[in-house]
């Protein structure tokens, strides 16, 4: 076989770097949507590589629901310091205080949907014309149709039926005042690719991804972590389990799985043997069969 070919991880990396450089070249003020989860960490790492030896030219935007894992916030702040990048925080609590959104009620109340307003407000306030996300097409069926460069109208909305055709690697980021784009450099990566890449590149990730003991409650088929925001009903009971998280979202909606995987190698091995999708532990996706699509249309990540 010819030596002139890339392996799949190198090809995915090269594609993502190409996308990030296109974003930089085509937009005035792009920002990385940084959640503290592994996908946005990988995107940030790729941005570091894409512009080396320049500093990472994007600010990092975090939509803070107030329902965070403390570990996530610490990780975020350390990374910002290391990169010397600018951090933009959009606060859901502020949106609530200003009356822009109303808190959900009931036992399964979350701030997940409220983030949309905060995110769009922050994009508008900071004049972000391209928000770079760690979304992957393998995550969810509505995401399977995302473009690398995805147009949002002046209400921040996605119209999946009227997307710009994207051919070869010719991305069209042209937009009118008030509109913006979402860019997804790791569109073509799967969960397994992300883990293999984290392993290969030795990328730092929050401790939450590794197996650890934690107070949890069994709800909707996964272990929901105990926190000051958790409301228990009579049938539920807090127990201590050795768990880890496959995805990170709000502490109120992110379920853990029982696991002994406490190194990247063990996690990669565990993920390759998984028989459940990673978002299976996210109660925000379980609300209806089209809950991701409905949120994305409104402007969700």
């Amino acid at each position, binding site marked *: *076989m010819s030596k002139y070919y890339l392996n799949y991880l190198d090809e995915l990396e090269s594609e993502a770097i190409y996308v990030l450089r296109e974003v930089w070249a085509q937009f005035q003020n792009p920002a990385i949507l940084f959640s503290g989860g592994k996908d946005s960490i990988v995107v940030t790492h790729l941005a570091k590589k894409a512009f080396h030896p320049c500093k990472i030219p994007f600010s990092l935007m975090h939509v803070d629901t107030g329902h965070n894992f403390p570990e996530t916030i610490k990780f975020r702040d350390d990374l910002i310091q290391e990169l010397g990048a600018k951090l933009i925080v959009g606060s859901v609590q502020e949106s609530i205080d200003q009356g822009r959104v109303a808190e959900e009620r009931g036992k399964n109340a979350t701030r997940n949907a409220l983030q949309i307003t905060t995110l769009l407000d922050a994009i508008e306030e900071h004049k972000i014309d391209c928000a770079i996300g760690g979304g992957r097409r393998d995550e969810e069926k509505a995401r399977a149709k995302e473009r690398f460069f995805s147009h949002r109208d002046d209400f921040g909305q996605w119209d999946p039926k009227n997307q710009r055709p994207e051919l070869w690697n*010719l991305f069209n980021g042209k937009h009118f005042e008030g509109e913006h784009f979402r860019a997804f450099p790791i569109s073509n990566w799967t969960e397994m690719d992300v883990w293999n890449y984290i392993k290969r590149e030795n990328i730092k990730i929050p401790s939450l991804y590794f197996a650890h003991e934690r107070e949890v409650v069994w709800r909707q088929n996964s272990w929901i972590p105990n926190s000051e925001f958790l409301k228990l009903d009579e049938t539920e009971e807090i127990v201590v389990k050795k768990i880890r998280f496959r995805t990170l979202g709000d502490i109120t909606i992110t379920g853990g799985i029982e696991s002994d995987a406490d190194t990247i190698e063990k996690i990669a091995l565990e993920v390759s043997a998984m028989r459940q999708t990673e978002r299976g532990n996210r109660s925000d996706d379980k609300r209806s069969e089209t809950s991701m699509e409905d949120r994305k249309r409104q402007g969700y990540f």
Partner: protein
Amino acid sequence: MLDNNQLLRFTTAGSVDDGKSTLIGRLLYDSKSIFEDQLEAVENTSKRKGHEGVDLALFTDGLRDEREQGITIDVAYRYFTTPKRKFIIADTPGHIQYTRNMVTGASTANAAIILVDARHGVIEQTKRHSFIASLLQIPHVIVCINKMDLVDYSEDAFNRVIEQYEEFSSKMLVRDIRFIPISALKGDNVVNRSGNMDWYQGAPLLHTLETLHISSDLNKVDARFPVQTVLRPQSHDENRDYRGYAGRVASGIFRPGDEITVMPSGFTSRIKSIDIFEGEVEEAFAPMSVSITLEEDIDIGRGDMIVRSNNKPEPSQDIEVMLCWLNNSPAKPRGKYRIRHTSNEQTAMIKEVVYKIDINTLERNSEDKELKMNDISKVKIRTTKPLMIDPYRENRTTGSIILIDDATNETVAAGMVV
């Protein structure tokens, strides 16, 4: 999965009736790429709709509208991995009105799967899909003759389709065509070899996909490097004089010391270094993203192209392209558009529609000059400044363009340089 495994992108063309969704579902299901919760969801939906067993087609259903209408309306991407390769499927619909989606999916594909119903043989749609595969220069075409279970797994039926197919495809430029008799519904020759067709000596579909030789498909002769952006650190450390031209190699091989010419200015220099994050590399080839530094300080920016001095593309303001119209609004007669070619952008005018192709009969029509959604035509385009183009059949990256309408910012057409 081994570290040296390659990525293969393929597209699937066919309509609901051909069993395309069932085929993809079968590939995912039999290669154990379906998760339990996905399977459970599909089992529930199958039951609700009154299907017997699992409706494999449901695995590839995406958006709400499609689920309601029972059709696929856009390009959806699927992923699966075997111990030999990682695969990306661009799943595109086969209906006539969705040529644009097929063209989109085909633009980055290494291989195309074309489905033919064994009972009906080659139909207009088969020709249309094959034509698009050849137009987009997909290097490998795999014709899957499906529903063999409904023709008693008959070798004659299989051979009849091959004969029909070869009759019309002889006029097309496809480098590698293979035929596989399958039943997506029953699982014959998709992942596992069929016990019902001993007369077939070839490999099942998945094995074929795993072993297609794709590394020789890339152009390694014509060294082309479109500059995306310039890297100039604003620091005061050892990098303060660094000036790197960032981009992705479109084709060919670059090495430090190579004599290069910057197009369109024509300035010449030598490559000083080829850098990636980890350090310098000895050579760069497609599709590597690198940063190139030169011996001389030359004014270079986005839209310029670095090429080897002994092998330059033809700068041209008058280009002929095969154009696929992608937008609801027809082309404006002698209309002006923005043209994107690699990282370069200019204003362009469609000067002349030479002919349109009737994609059902593949006949040329020189009378009808209106370019409507899904039309494929040969046109002459004039640009305000020269583009550094290669013929598409030699170079899929430097031979492709898109047109953008300034009034709407939409991508309205895609073209392949003749």
